[in-house]
């Protein structure tokens, strides 16, 4: 171990905002985590929930009241001590419509959410400050995922005075209780985090400073990393360099592989002919050669057969799904009345490697007679098309695919497979809506008691495999994560492929003397 030192992390895109109520892309997600803290957190490198700003918590028997005892002596970067009213302020702010937080919906279970989020009430009636060190949160319905929600960035605590001072620009002048404080932000060039000396975890962080350089093409970042100019290529290993890098002895030990809560899938619009026909959807599922697609992306993923990724609780290892079988697919198509195939469209985001994957899919489909025309558009346009009921028959989700916000199967259902997402502008691009399953999902999430945890996961397992039997998706693969970093970086097990801190858990990284 060593203390101190500076590292450089590069990104292609600008850092958008560091406001925890607003930031919601994978790039700023982990940066925010190093600047702010929530009541709950995960053990580094795992998906195991642990209290953070909360010292401890209790849950009422009916699962509706959570009481958090806060850690004393925690300081904000501005020097003020953190108290219970900050938690209330934070939660009120995130659901307040003027904040425009994309995460407001996560707090739907808290009592008074509807009034607060529509602007009718000033704050959440369910959040009460009992004293400086105690907060009580009352839910309107039991929610098994609530503690996960409290670990989300959106629930990370912000000091009111700093928000008031900067208003909409708080995201450019973040003040939190995190391990690092932001000390410089030069737009379009870099953001600098410096160690926060009063951090409430002893011995953390280990580094003095992290410089996030933006506007760096991943390939450039990699070459610079090779030359030792930077420490972490934030965007990972560009597909083009993957084979070269992994087979290059120079990089031995620089690459860490891990799983992530991700599934890449093709949505089949169940409201549009001919995908309203189950047989057609099944045929498509059988037609796609997932192994080949994985090969095209140089093995940076594993083939998938169900919506949930393997790392997610509820993943069914025994489920077989649809096997690759073009002949059977053809037969199914014929049964469905499409012996000669049909013509359709496949929407895809226009950044590499997505169009390539789409072309692989296209070729597979053409083997069973389906002629799919590729629509390769800017991501926002694909999302817009998916949100219309009759626009996109098929969408390859790559680049926009679902990565879980927290490690719980319910996070993989609602917006993308539930009826709630099958609305104009929603994310359920297959427009799959099964009211019966919806009910079961709600029931499952109400099983908040820790003793019911296992039964709840079992129920989710069934829900997802049953959905997959209806084939609204073609699950294609689960992407693996490969973090590339300079050899001088070190840290505890798992932080370089931390499931929630992408690419790394900055708080625990240090520079090892050996190099």
């Amino acid at each position, binding site marked *: 171990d060593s203390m101190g030192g500076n590292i450089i992390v590069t990104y292609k895109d*600008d850092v958008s905002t560091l406001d925890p109520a607003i930031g919601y892309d994978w790039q700023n997600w982990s940066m925010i985590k190093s600047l702010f803290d929530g009541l709950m957190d995960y053990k580094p490198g795992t998906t195991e929930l642990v209290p953070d700003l909360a010292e401890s918590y209790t849950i009422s028997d009916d699962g509706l009241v959570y009481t958090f005892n806060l850690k004393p002596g925690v300081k904000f970067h501005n020097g003020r001590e953190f108290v219970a009213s900050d938690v209330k302020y934070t939660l009120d702010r995130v659901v307040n*419509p003027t904040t425009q937080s*994309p995460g*407001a919906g996560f707090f739907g279970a808290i009592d008074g959410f509807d009034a607060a989020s529509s602007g009718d009430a000033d704050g959440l009636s369910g959040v009460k400050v009992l004293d400086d060190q105690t907060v009580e949160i009352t839910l309107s319905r039991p929610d098994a995922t609530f503690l996960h929600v409290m670990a989300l960035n959106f629930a990370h605590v912000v000091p009111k005075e700093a928000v008031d001072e900067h208003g909409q*620009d708080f995201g450019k002048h973040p003040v939190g209780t995190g391990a690092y404080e932001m000390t410089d932000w030069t737009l*379009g*060039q870099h953001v600098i985090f410096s160690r926060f000396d009063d951090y409430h975890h002893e011995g953390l962080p280990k580094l003095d400073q992290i410089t996030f350089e933006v506007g760096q093409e991943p390939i*450039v970042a990699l070459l610079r990393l090779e030359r030792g100019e930077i420490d972490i290529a934030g965007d990972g290993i560009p597909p083009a360099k993957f084979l070269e890098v992994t087979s290059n002895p120079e990089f031995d030990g620089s690459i860490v592989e891990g799983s992530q809560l991700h599934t890449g899938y093709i949505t089949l619009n169940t409201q549009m002919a001919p995908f309203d026909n189950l047989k057609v959807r099944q045929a498509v599922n059988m037609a796609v050669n997932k192994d080949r697609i994985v090969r095209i992306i140089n093995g940076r993923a594993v083939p998938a057969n169900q919506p949930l990724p393997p790392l997610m609780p509820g993943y069914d290892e025994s489920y077989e799904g649809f096997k690759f079988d073009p002949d059977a697919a053809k037969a199914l198509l014929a049964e469905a009345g499409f012996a000669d195939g049909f013509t359709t469209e496949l929407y895809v985001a226009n950044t590499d490697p997505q169009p390539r994957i789409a072309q692989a899919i296209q070729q597979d489909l053409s083997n069973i007679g389906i002629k799919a025309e590729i629509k390769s558009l800017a991501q926002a346009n694909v*999302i817009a098309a998916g949100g219309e009921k009759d626009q996109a028959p098929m969408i390859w989700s790559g680049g926009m695919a679902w990565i879980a916000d927290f490690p719980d199967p319910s996070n993989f259902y609602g*917006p993308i497979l539930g009826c709630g997402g099958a609305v104009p502008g929603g994310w359920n691009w297959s427009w799959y809506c099964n009211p019966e399953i919806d009910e079961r999902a709600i029931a499952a999430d109400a099983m908040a008691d820790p003793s019911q945890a296992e039964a709840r996961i079992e129920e989710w397992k069934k829900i997802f495999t049953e959905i997959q039997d209806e084939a609204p998706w073609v699950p294609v693969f689960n992407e693996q994560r490969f973090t590339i970093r300079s050899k001088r970086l070190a840290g505890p097990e798992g932080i370089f492929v931390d499931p929630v801190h992408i690419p790394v858990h900055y708080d625990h990284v240090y520079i090892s003397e050996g190099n």
Partner: protein
Amino acid sequence: MYAYVIRRLVEAALILLGVSFITFILLYLVPADPARQIAGRSATAQTVENIREQLGLNLPFYEQYWRYLVNLLQGDFGRSYLQKSEVGELIAARLPASLLLMVAAICTELVMGVMIGVIAAIKRDTPLDKGLMVFSFVGVSAPQFVVGILLLYVFAVQLQWFPIGGYGTFAHIVLPALTLGVLGTGWYSRMMRSSLIDVMTQDYIRTARAKGMPRMRVIFRHALPNAFLPIIAMIGIDIGFFMSGIVVVESVFGWPGIGQLAWQAIQRVDIPIIMGVTLVSACAIVLGNLVADLVAPFVDPRIKLK
């Protein structure tokens, strides 16, 4: 002169108004819902609706445009949907880098273009001339992304003479400026050559020679200033090419300018940024032409600004 400048500025303002209007219509038609983009994938319909209302996205088109215009006149470009910052700030932060790149590119093309053009004109119809002209033709025929990648591959990756990307030192700017300047070098050298050849046949050059002026003086004192006029006009037009070029060059080299900003914004359909960058670019183009027109009378006193 003042009347001219004022009229041109008024015209410029009208043109910018037109540009803003057309861009606004186009972006209005882009099939992507800003409110949903801001709201993100986990948002409830309520959140989306809130955002839509707060941004005035549910207003009729003309009202939205009017709002935008009123804000614009107060110097407010609006807030980026996805970057969550003032667009004005984002552009202001990146403009210097783009300007630096453009100035470097202009210098590159002027120096190289004029030099090549003059040499080719003087050595007219020799193999040297032919060679230089082929070079300049290749210059105008090569897409910038190909040039950029090639330079990167040869000089940064293979030879390691220059950094692969980034911003900061002189070494960083060489390759991007070259890439951006290659096209102009081609144009300028061809223009300079033909313009100089043309000027050399003019009566006043014959006069200068009849006065017994030495050859070099005839070329550099008499011919060159006269041949320069089309180049001046071209520099104005060049700004337009640059505004397109930086989108490609900045993204190839990771140069933190407004081209990169525009490209990121386009990919994510971040409408306020696209609007802002388009307007700033249009402004640069219009001003570039104006400046070229204002400079022209200094180069050629015959030109009267009307």
